[in-house]
């Protein structure tokens, strides 16, 4: 049933009206985001992903980066 599916995908969170209005004003100027919800979801995903991965050390050392670049180059990707 479509309605149930839609309900299970979204929930409502509260943010101050002033913040909502500021975001709305900002996204009108910058293209891309269709709505305040769209923008808030994007920002929260970024922040949550950052926290989820904060315990993971920097993936590549500078030596790793040079080696990987050389490999990717030899493979034709760069």
């Amino acid at each position, binding site marked *: 049933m479509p309605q149930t599916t839609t309900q299970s*995908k979204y929930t409502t969170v509260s943010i101050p009206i002033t913040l909502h209005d500021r975001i709305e004003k900002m996204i009108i100027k910058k293209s891309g985001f269709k709505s305040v919800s769209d923008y808030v979801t*994007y920002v929260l995903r970024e922040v949550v992903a950052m926290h989820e991965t904060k315990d993971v050390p920097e993936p590549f050392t500078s030596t790793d980066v040079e080696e990987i670049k050389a490999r*990717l180059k*030899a*493979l*034709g990707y760069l």
Partner: protein
Amino acid sequence: MSKRVAIIGLDSVPPEMMFDKLLDKLPNIKRMYDRGIHGDLETCNPPITVPAWMVMMTGKNPGKLGIYGFRHRRGFSYSDGYIVNSTTVKEDTVWQMLSRQGKKSIVLGVPPGYPPKAIEDTEIVSCFITPGQDKQFTNPPELKQEVLAAAGGKYIFDVTFRTEDREAIRKELFEMTEKRFDVAEYLAKTKPWDFFIMHEIGFDRLHHAFWKFFDPKHPKYVKGNQYENLDEEYYKMVDDRIGRLVKLFGEDTITFIVSDHGSKGMVGAFCVNQWLEQQGYISFKTRPTKMTDIDKAEVDWTKTKAWGWGGYYARIFFNVKGREPTGVVERKDLEAEKKKLSSLIMSIKDNNGKQMKNVVFEPDQLYGRAIGDKPDLMVYFDDLNWRSAGTVGHDSLYLFENDTGPDDSVHSMMGIFIMYDPSKNLNSKILKNAKIEDMAPTLLKMLGVPSVDDMDGHVLSEVFS
């Protein structure tokens, strides 16, 4: 819907190789093809391993992921860049969504998979970007010792490309793939799972390093060469391993064989930056006389309007005032400049004076919204038959060797799709119009897990009927 789901991901396999040329020589895959559903799987733009597997596993286009290739510019720097890794992917993959519903997954080698993310109920072995086996390349960490043991003490993430040392590449290629399947069998047998996915990079390496040897249509093909049947030999070895693996999966598993893009013979490399110089877009303080990376060339940025990156497609960046460190193109003129350059690109001819079939995309128009470190323009030279050479200092705009290493193939837009359910005979049903981003919602539906709202992919309803 209590069946398990497995994906065998074969990087860069085109329908022309798997379905047209070699299928009759591959008894296990042919059985799955004959009893299952098959079709072409249209890849994303750009048709590159990174981002393609993440498009497949998130159901979202590269613009939404903000991933346009293996390497990105850092912000608007002229030379600073970074290698895309697992943490660059901010959107949820199928196995992350499954984990939240308490379902267990095995994820072997799916790129970009390094560093392995800590995801509950998910056994992860990282991908070919992993710097080496001394690194922490598994989740959970203790899985590493089991992987090494299953691989006979030495696991191979990727083959090393050495200029013209094809024999060493061949040997390592077979060894790497055998080890991957050894590990796949070990994981599938010993770990509990609802969803299994493995990725094999070997096909991509086989195609790039050996295409001219096995494709009679390639301009450099020599009849009777020692690698003439290497494609068949490698595909058959994998077919045998797939046969073993699918048997091990058992009757309660639906198996997919998919690829992330296709491959075809490379015609040559087009020197995009030398062409931009000819058109007055790039100015050098000192013009390089031997092959030099554009990042290392003495570019006069105060007189340069746009430059490009090499790879299987070209990324073009404008040098915009207030955006780049010493930008020259006024922001208000950027759209007009993009249009002007696009039209010049569309008029490029090949080495024989024949019009190339070039394609130019603007990321925001292509994806709806493009985040991250995106190029201003994306260019395919002659329907991808020519790769883009970013280096400068060549005598000609046209190179007939890759400027960066041994390479005989380029990427194409169609990959493969096979679905096989051991309990059903679907009589080689044909799937039409399937796109790579359709895989994620289809897999989630199959596993009974709700999909997310903003996927670009759609459920492939034919696989359920």
